[in-house]
């Protein structure tokens, strides 16, 4: 594989893959926050 092809493969797949994976993690975080909400009673206890 020549350097140009290699470079563009790494740029597009690498940067694209990083962006897509982090976006996936963002979705997972949103799901985690929904599935594991902060319990209101904790706040009341502190009060």
């Amino acid at each position, binding site marked *: 594989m020549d350097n140009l092809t290699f470079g563009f493969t790494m740029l597009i797949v690498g*940067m694209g893959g*990083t962006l897509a*994976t982090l976006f*996936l*993690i963002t979705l997972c975080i949103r799901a*985690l926050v929904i599935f*594991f909400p902060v319990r209101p009673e904790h706040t009341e206890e502190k009060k």
Partner: protein
Amino acid sequence: MIDAMLGGLGALSEGVRVLLTTGGPNVIMLAVAGVMFWLAIAKGVEPLLLLPIAFGCLLVNLPLSEVMDAGGVLKCLYDFGIGNELFPLLIFVGIGTMTDFTPLLANPRLLLFGAAGQLGIFITLMLALALGFSKEAAVSVAAIGACDGPTVIYVSNMFAGMNKIPTAMVGALAVAAYSYMALVPVIQPPIMRLLTTRKEREVKMTSPKGKVSKAALIAFPIVVTVITGIVAPKGLPLMGMIMLGNFMKVTGVVPRLANAAENEIANISTLFLGLAIGGTMAGPQFLKYETLMVFGLGLVAIVIDTVGGILLGKIWYLLSGGKVNPLVGAAGISAYPMAARLVQTEGQRWNKHNFLLMHAMAANTGGQIGSVMAAAIMLSILKGLGII
């Protein structure tokens, strides 16, 4: 008897003779070690790493030094913890315990700044290839853009172990990575000011809404580890170790282990890693044209990282109707928490009522994940291409 005494004296002066006759590169490297000592001690530039690296550099460049020969102390340390990538991974466990992902979980969209902050890696890779570096060397140099010393050492040493890049290059890459991490407060502010308008810098962002439950904080490292394992298994040790450290901390059930990872393990690994890396900086192998290129490309990588983050910030500013301060994008690199503090300082410089710290911390932890993920993805692509 006089002959024997002269022979003995001759042996004692052999070091001076070698230094004066063939020790030119070593003398230069001893001066480099002196500069690193000065930076670490007088200027406080990454002293935890630069001090042992400089001492390793001193030890290996003294005439007739055998510290990097077979059985030498630095060679043993190198084989024990660098040659198999153990020390960078142990340091990652410590970094995991020191990282708080709460701001990121409270504001997950800012994780995308962590992706934009890796642009420098891939652009620098292209530049290094254009400048004639081999594919493996180009990937190693590009990894400086991760702005994360252990990642750079992990990636480059993998290639050194395969004899794809010279061992001395690992030392150059490590020193460049840690130097530029320390210079982030010097490198980033001019770029921030150059790429943003005063109006953009003055944008006051609203506080992140909502708290994060402990259960979500506990589940997060597991989720990230599983995703990395599936998407980029070659980088799983990197991400797995950082998430292990964080998992131990957030569960709260193993405070002794978390404390050991944050202190003893991280400190011992840092000392040994620094010494062993310094041991790779022997003058004749280190003083090459490629070393200068490594430092030049490393700077380019970090500049482009910052540009990438700020440009995403500007796009976000436009899309949100002026609600996102583009400066936050500069924190999308892995220099934690330095980059976040820098954004806070710069934001307050232009608007005294501006508190960007929590947003910047979210972007900064995103940068940590992003840098490791980018390295993991690069390694997995290389595996897929049959290069490693």
